[in-house]
């Protein structure tokens, strides 16, 4: 299992501790402490996952997140000290897949990282349709009229989860469990933000979604194909 993790954090002690824990779990960590150098380090290290502190000297975490997301769909997990502020939503909207609130336990962190990397395991060849989209699960591609749409792995997982059971309405909690790997109730803002991001990519008119339909008071479901 691949396990290159780029740790973007200015706190050297925390970065070192993260390194110890990650190495102990079989990951290969690399480090960068400055937001300005983060993108270069990312290109060089080609990590499978980025651990990103939101508060950084130089470029802040939100900006780094946006830059990385602009050129890669690699999973990004934010480290944040503030769980209830807009920071989290802004971070998610700028492309982070998940976040973890300080102080966290090492096991929690590792579980989050593994959940994000889990999908790298080979899926069975499978062809799904949702709306006018064609999804090749093994090939990891989404096409509309032969035109391929670029999605991050998380967005792809979200779409596949919905498309596999088009008859089912998914509550946000169920999606959190299936897509993010949360065992117990977590922040449903994760789902809301990523559904918005997904819609902005796959819907013809994100204001009036046809692929990912909101079921008021319950959750989301796949649109009719």
């Amino acid at each position, binding site marked *: 299992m691949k396990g290159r993790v780029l740790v973007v954090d200015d706190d050297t002690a*925390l970065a070192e*501790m993260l390194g110890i*824990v990650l190495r102990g779990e079989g990951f290969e960590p690399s480090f960068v402490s400055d937001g300005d150098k983060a993108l270069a380090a990312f290109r060089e290290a080609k990590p499978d996952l980025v651990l990103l502190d939101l508060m950084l000297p130089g470029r802040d975490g939100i900006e780094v997140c946006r830059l990385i997301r602009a050129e890669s769909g690699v999973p990004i997990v934010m480290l944040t*000290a503030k769980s209830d*502020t807009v920071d989290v939503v802004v971070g998610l909207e700028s492309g982070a897949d998940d976040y973890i609130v*300080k102080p966290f336990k090492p*096991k929690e962190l590792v579980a989050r990282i593994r959940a994000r990397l889990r999908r790298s395991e080979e899926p069975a060849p499978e062809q799904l349709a949702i709306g006018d989209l064609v999804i090749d699960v093994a090939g990891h591609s989404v096409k509309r009229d032969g035109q391929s749409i670029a999605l991050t792995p998380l967005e792809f997982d979200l779409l596949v989860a919905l498309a596999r059971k088009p008859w089912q309405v998914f509550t946000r909690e169920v999606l959190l469990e299936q897509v993010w790997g949360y065992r117990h109730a977590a922040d449903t803002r994760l789902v809301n933000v990523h559904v918005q991001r997904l819609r902005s990519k796959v819907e013809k008119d994100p204001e009036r979604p046809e692929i990912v339909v909101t079921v008021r008071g319950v959750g989301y479901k796949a649109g009719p194909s």
Partner: protein
Amino acid sequence: MPGDSRARTGRAAGPGRGGSRFGRLLQDGTPGGPVFRLVVRWVRRPLLPAVRLWRRNLQVRVVAGTLLMSLGVVLLLGLVVIGQVRNGLLDAKEKAAQSQAAGGFSAAQDRAATTPSVPGEQDRGRTGASVNWRSTLVEQLASGGQSAYNVVALSLETGNTASRGARASGEVDPTTSIPADLRHNVAQGTNTYQKFARIQYTNGKPSEAGLVIGKRLNDADGTPYELYYLFPLTQEEDSLALVKTTLATAGLFLLVLLGAITWLMVRQVLTPVRMAAGIAERLSVGKLQERMKVTGEDDIARLGEAFNKMAQNLQLKIQQLEELSRMQRRFVSDVSHELRTPLTTVRMAADVIHDARADFDPVTARSAELLGDQLDRFESLLSDLLEISRFDAGAAALEAAPIDLREVVQRVISGAEPLAERKGSRVVVVGDEQPVVAEADARRVERVLRNLVVNAVEHGEGRDVIVKLAAAGGAVAVAVRDYGVGLKPGEATRVFNRFWRADPARARTTGGTGLGLSIAVEDARLHGGWLQAWGEAGGGSQFRLTLPRTADEPLRGSPIPLEPEDSRRNREQAAAGPAGGPGRGTAAGTGSAAGGGTGAGARLSAVPAQPPAGGRQALPVPPRMPSVPRATADPTALPGSGARVVARPSDQAGSTGAAGDGDGGEAMASTRAEREDGTGGR
């Protein structure tokens, strides 16, 4: 001037009030009073909008007042002017008439003197001759006036000859036109007498006002007769009427103009005042940049300037406070971050050490365990502190959505299961047959309930914990009842204090932070709900969370009584109810309950409960209560964290406790008396 305005208001409501006063008067004496009052009420109803306008609109009041007062002035002026004019007109007429009459009288006298007396004829036709003479006299005298006056000659009122000698010119009715008292005066005296009277005509001409001047004269025969001059005042009346119409028209114009002028002037003054009122309203809503437009240097301008200065100072202060609050929040947020980053490192390091403790010697291994445990505690303390300061800074936001409290309770109970198992107690849910839905923040409600349930299990001394749900009216409630050590008197309010501990010496098994209930109270308050505690020493406690069904609805009561039905006092009362009557039951209550005591006691009817189904003997109360969710809201429930504890001498408590055990069961009040007092109010 409030008195002034009240007086005016009274006047405005005059018809109604006067009517009702009249109605009262009537009612005192006559049986028709109530009917009259009904009529008055019926009449008054359509007047109410006008009364309201009068009370609320200063402009209307000022204009109406001005109109009323100037109406009075105009009327007074008119009366004076008319009086003056009439006096002037009449004086002139009177003088002319008097000289005319005087001339006439002397002419008549002369004629009487010059006409030779015919003694021979005297016997034969004396009366006829004198009458003829008078006729010609009257005609002659009247002809000189060209109908400006008429002349009447009357014989002296002596017996039945009175009307015989009556001669009048110009169709004047001689007898009715001359007033009797004037005739009397004339007949008695020798002077000239005058009087205003109405002149009547014989030819159907309408009567008119006139001046009558009369004198007693002697005719040619020396026979006395009365001669009257009648001057009609038609012209003067016409002139007076003209003056009256002119005055009335002028007065009306004056009134209308005055009203209009007052309206304009008042508006000029009131417009800035109204503007100020409107801006003050907008300021109070929070639009702090609102200012008045100031022009000139008059009083109104000064008002505007003062107002603007006030608004500016207000805005400044509010901005300062907002700035402070922002700084506070910022500080909390910064502390949060600054503390959390090193804590994360320590936490991870501790976990790594903890995982490797098997390789350490016992002392180091135990140290690693302590380090890990205390870090957990430190973490929860930190997050609780931050949560509290978020409430203090007003930064806590409610994310309300309709939730079923049963689900929340289930989650909480399954979370508390391990602790309950360790403590050897069960958590029983009552009243979850129907959905208990409220608009609430699921995360916060779950936090509150987790806190209550964990506390109850922790202090329940291994006895069962009962979680009771109910919904009624606009409120839902969850009560968590334990049968542990309970609360001492006065502690029920203090449990919500920060870092408060019932017994500092008591060991804690789950390292609580001492902030849990404080946060819970804040959470409840954020919902517009209540969190209250009740407890009795040795008899356990009950914590009740009451939430409004919808977020914007104020709470009026709680579906669950704060003091549980199986409280010691309730059981006592229920037991005393059928036997000793209400007297003994209320005696156990605290002083504050005495007010409602007799009523409560009278309402109390006790039914023996089902004997426990072979439950746990150690319990003073059976674990499963046949309790029915109450359908009515608790009207006397108190807002906030208010609560009270049953105060009672310990010996009595002991005896009743023993009695309860001896029964092996309990009696429950089916109609529960409300005993919550006002001491718990915040």
